[in-house]
């Protein structure tokens, strides 16, 4: 398994196609928690596939104001067809050319297979990796880890605000 970027690391910026004619950069989303979900490929043959699951859980992620981005080495046209078929309501990014370049930056590329790991990153509002997790490629990691990280992140933020306001009073 690859060694993915650890918490505390600044999340590498990137710009990737989100549709065949639109690009999205990570820094555009700064100010919000971001969930970056690398996965091997579109069209996995099971019902409860990872992206379909996250699609259902989207309202839970939104409670934390978090933005979810799926990333695989599939091209933008493939993503478009996949997203349409599965009724996905979040962006899929095409890490297509040069293939897997962003996955490599995050330490989440499987060179021997030519696709990304099932690697999850929760990035804080300042663009720093707050939590990361790499699942065995055959195991859908679910969303409990992501939700726990978002909860911890909110807790930390509230604590920081409390510390700041109390030092202000002094």
């Amino acid at each position, binding site marked *: 398994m690859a060694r993915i970027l650890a918490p505390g690391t600044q999340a590498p910026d990137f710009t990737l196609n989100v549709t065949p004619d639109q690009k999205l950069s990570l820094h555009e989303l700064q100010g919000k928690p971001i969930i970056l979900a690398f996965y091997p490929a579109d069209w996995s043959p099971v*019902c*409860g596939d990872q992206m379909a*699951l996250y699609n*259902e859980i989207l309202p839970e992620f939104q409670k934390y104001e978090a933005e979810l981005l799926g990333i695989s080495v599939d091209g933008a046209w493939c993503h478009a067809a996949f997203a349409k078929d*599965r009724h996905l309501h979040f962006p899929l990014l095409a890490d297509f050319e040069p293939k897997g370049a962003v996955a490599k930056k995050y330490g989440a590329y499987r060179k021997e297979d030519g696709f990304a790991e099932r690697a999850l990153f929760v990035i804080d509002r300042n663009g720093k990796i707050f939590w990361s997790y790499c699942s065995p490629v055959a195991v859908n990691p679910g969303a409990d880890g992501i939700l726990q990280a978002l909860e911890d992140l909110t807790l930390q933020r509230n604590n920081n605000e409390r510390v700041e306001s109390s030092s202000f009073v002094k």
Partner: protein
Amino acid sequence: MSVLKVPVSSNDHIQGDEHALVTLVEYGDYECPHCGRAYHIVKALQKHYGPQLRFVFRNFPLTQIHPLAEPAAEAAEFAGTHKRFWEMHDGIYENQDRLSVRILSEMAERLGLTAERLRDALADHEFEPRIRKDFQGGVRSGVNGTPTFFINDVRHDGLYEFKDLVSAIDARMLQLKPDVA
């Protein structure tokens, strides 16, 4: 290791004895073909273990890919308020390949329930909050697709063929009561 975050309680749909050695919890979707297969496997497990196994079903509808999963879950919950949950649950899985809102109404009527009341309940999404609660608890417990099974609160990560579940359940029983197995 993922563990069940919401303990089995009297709010659940439970089959079998409270004192059973092993409790099998399934998070399922009524329109998911894999759950349709698992339905028959669970029946075989219940026959195999008898009173030693307790079974709990919780809702985990993947509504974006299975448009009938939510109405089917709501219909089963509706039947549940009239103490007919398991008949409806079984009926839905037995008729999974021809599932429709009409079939749900017909099944309700066959159970002596009012189809009109069911129609209202579906229109008002009367049972949606309960289903959401099941779903959220499942997500928190690491449910990562359907069906997902928990054996005495621990997520079963292997295959769910009869023999795979039997060996996982046997292993758990052996830990609890070495003399029985």
